[in-house]
């Protein structure tokens, strides 16, 4: 396609599933997500493309969290696929059970997605997730990472970026927010299990997201896709900016897009001209204190270094570039 848009009337060869008039809309209108919710958008992208690729043979297990709460409150259910919500910390294990049951009951074409936010993935559900990886259970786990506990009012999770303000990391004199040197990198944790497929994706690049999900959904064994989904409420930016913020995170290198197979990075989406992280940080209130009077001037550099390390680590200069 000549443009990087979701579709293009002139050229639908590489057009995203999301551009198709008959896309499935696996999560329908009427859900109660906030205006400009990145997670609602990402979830639809994931489910729709998985639905297409599998010929409708998918079931989804959803951890507790924003996505679950806004999509399925009696008497209104937004899902158009078989969907199961059990608990906050057990989605991966429940999905294991579901996947196994489909095999046992002869529904061999059914593919299973487990999905949850960063809290249920990197914190409370990490045990179950690791267990699922360990057994290489036949489940695609999708984490919608909005980098804090949004459902409960924006508290810190282990996916919260350093120096970010959350309700439990409120900057006060002498404390600049979520401490540097903390946090988990779940994609790397997943890779350490040497599962068949790990990828990161962002809602700013739906075609890439769909490509990864299409690939992941058909692979056997445990697969993990980590999707960056900005949250207007928790990050402090206008709802209209969701995609732009996601794009900025990718373009500065703070959220690298890559793929790994059996624990080894095999490809990454190159960044032509990496932008300074400052632009990305300034666009969000959760980082506003980093630009205040009392902020040490070198503090931005701490974050810039993370981005720079990513550039090198995931070879975002283009060595891995996709065809």
């Amino acid at each position: 396609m000549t443009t990087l848009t979701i579709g293009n009337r002139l050229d639908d060869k590489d057009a995203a599933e999301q551009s198709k008039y008959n896309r499935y809309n696996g999560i329908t209108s009427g859900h109660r997500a906030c205006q400009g919710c990145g997670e609602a958008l990402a979830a639809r992208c994931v489910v729709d493309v998985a639905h297409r690729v599998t010929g409708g043979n998918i079931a989804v297990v959803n951890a507790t969290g924003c996505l679950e709460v806004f999509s399925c409150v009696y008497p209104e259910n937004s899902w158009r696929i078989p969907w199961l919500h059990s608990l906050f910390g057990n989605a991966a294990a429940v999905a294991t059970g579901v996947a196994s049951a489909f095999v046992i009951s002869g529904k061999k074409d059914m593919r299973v997605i487990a999905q949850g936010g960063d809290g249920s993935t990197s914190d409370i559900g990490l045990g179950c997730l690791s267990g699922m990886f360990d057994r290489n259970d036949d489940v695609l786990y999708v984490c919608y990472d909005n980098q804090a506990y949004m459902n409960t009012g924006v508290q810190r999770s282990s996916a919260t970026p350093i120096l970010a303000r959350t309700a439990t990391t409120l900057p006060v004199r002498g404390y600049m927010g979520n401490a540097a040197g903390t946090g988990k990198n779940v994609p790397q944790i997943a890779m350490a299990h040497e599962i068949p497929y790990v990828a990161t994706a962002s809602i700013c690049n739906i075609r890439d997201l769909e490509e990864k999900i299409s690939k992941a959904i058909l692979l056997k064994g445990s697969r993990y896709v980590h999707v960056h989904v900005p949250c207007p409420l928790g990050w402090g930016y206008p709802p209209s900016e969701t995609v732009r913020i996601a794009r900025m995170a990718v373009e500065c290198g703070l959220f690298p897009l890559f793929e790994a197979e059996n624990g080894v990075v095999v490809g990454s989406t190159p960044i032509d001209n990496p932008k300074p992280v400052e632009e990305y940080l300034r666009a969000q209130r959760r980082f506003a204190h980093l630009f205040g009077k009392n902020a040490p001037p070198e503090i931005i550099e701490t974050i810039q270094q993370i981005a720079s390390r990513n550039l090198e680590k995931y070879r975002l200069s283009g060595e891995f570039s996709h065809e």
Partner: protein
Amino acid sequence: MLHQLEGSQAIAKAVALCRPGMVCAYPITPQTHIVEHLGELIHAEELWNCDYVNVESEMAAISVTIGSQAAGVRSYTATSSQGLLYMQEGVYNASGLELPMVMTLGNRAIGSPINIWNDHSDAMSVRDAGWIMLFPETNQEAADLHIQAFKIAETLQCPVMVCVDGFVLTHAYERVDIPSPEMVDDFLPHYEPRFCLDAANPLAIGTMVPPEYFMEVRYLAHKKQLGALKIIEQVGKDFYKKFDRHSGGLIRTYKTEEAKTIIVAMGSVLGTIKDTVDELNAQGEKYGVVSVVSYRPFPAEALRAALAHAQHVVVVEKALAVGTGGILFQELELPLKNIVRKISSIIAGLGGRAITKSMLKYALKQDEREIFLGLDQNVVAEKIQLVKSCCCK
């Protein structure tokens, strides 16, 4: 066919006869032998078309089971004690989702202090979780109740927990009649889920329910449990018809017709109690025994009927609600109010403390409302003194 089997093996064989599609558990004493044996049966393909999943925690065990059951496959798990506490969120979840799974609870005390021996504290911690809870007295009954458990669960669309005394039953070798696969198949037909994850009819299972409807959901769960009383009884009768054994039902009575004092208890301790009663009655006393098989739903009506004529009801139980007292005892107090003059409580066997005939005989002679069977007064006296002095300061 008769076998001399360890209780765990008997349970495993009974579960296998029910042809589950999923067995998933995490090791914890004293439940381990059950799932070890099931694993062996599955891996040897004596139980086929069934997945055995080794998980990393009880939370995962119950969760995998929830998943497979929700996807329409008969599912089974087992745990004990701390494991049950660790999976407790899932225990509530399974019943809230109305998933008819079956779980064996190898009854064991709860720490701290850590203690691996038998009592009923673990079961009592989930008594309000919405599961049907059945307490077998023997290993034969343990095996039989598992077969009935699947039937009850699937009839009611409600999970069932079979609470088997850890070690006392799970590790005891006894004679057990293991029925033929054909008979079990006949009794327990192939599982047809009433709702499940299905691409052809994509339901959402596990919604959030707001205040406007939550009360109704809980009310319906309550009504369903009460309705289960009939079904449990009926399944017990059907089982008798099929297998010619009285296993199951709500309660069982022993020599209660002429009894003045009736002892109420659950689980394996009933055998020792019955022997004690026989010995006492041989000396001219008038004791009877009522076994509570179905603890949840609580058969208040049946118990009232069985105990109405007693002058004295003694509840022997292996659990204690700290700060309140006997749990089964309290649950019986209300139904028997104004019917039975005297009710007393014997807390026995906590943390695996032996319950012997002589201890029971001694306790039954005491005229006390609450007795801790075999309590070492010397050990506690000093501490109690200390507590008192602290409080007085």
